[in-house]
């Protein structure tokens, strides 16, 4: 019996620092990407700060994980979205977003795709699982 590939979405809704949810949630994404699953990631609410470029975690005394988010495409995580409204509410623009990898052919940098909440809702409706961090 051929099993359909399951769609698994990660929503990142908490701020990247101040608690470990987002960091450990990143570890889950990297592991699940190695399995036969259709992975997507949506950053919304305070989670949009996780994909802001130029994070400096030195004063916090923690390693930080911006570099890993910058390599999502290397882990074959390419369906990466940011909620437009959450971004705008926090004074962020598309230019603030970090690069998550580069296009294999053109070597153009790839950034998360900014989408509206209606598009996110439509994607959510198609998922087998949604994991929130």
């Amino acid at each position, binding site marked *: 019996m051929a099993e359909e590939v399951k769609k*698994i979405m990660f929503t990142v809704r908490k701020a990247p620092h101040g608690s470990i*949810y987002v960091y450990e949630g990143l570890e889950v994404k990297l592991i699940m990407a190695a399995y036969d699953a259709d992975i997507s990631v949506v950053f919304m609410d305070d989670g949009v700060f996780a994909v802001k470029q130029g994070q400096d975690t030195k004063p916090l005394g923690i390693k930080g994980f911006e570099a890993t988010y910058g390599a999502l495409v290397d882990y074959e995580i390419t369906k990466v979205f940011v909620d437009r409204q959450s971004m705008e509410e926090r004074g962020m623009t598309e230019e603030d977003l970090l690069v998550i990898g580069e296009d294999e052919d053109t070597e153009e940098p790839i950034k998360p795709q900014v989408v509206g909440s209606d598009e996110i809702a439509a994607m959510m409706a198609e998922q087998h*699982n949604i994991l929130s961090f």
Partner: protein
Amino acid sequence: MKLAVCIYEGPYNHEAADSAYNFIQAAIQKGHEIKGIFFYHDGVYNVTKLMEPPQDDRHIANRWSAIGASGIDIVVCIAAAKRRGIVDEVLVPNVRISGLGQLTMMAIEADRLVVFGD
């Protein structure tokens, strides 16, 4: 329905562990199948035998152990556990430490993955 449950929060500090326990009991009573229970983040503290709550309070770790004894697979994330000093020696019986691959398999195999967290 085939269900899997993931718990993010530690015992006593947060209601997530209690809600998950009650949910699992109710689901079993309704005839659903629990494919597995996965502890992540501070959730790994749920299954240490070192906890010793007051006698008139619920013993959260023993409760999970009893669910494990009924044949339900209970998995503690190794990466989250190592960070927090949870090792095989401190686990209650009927619980095992393994990797996030186990959560992945639960997520794929179950009809619903239900997460209890903050």
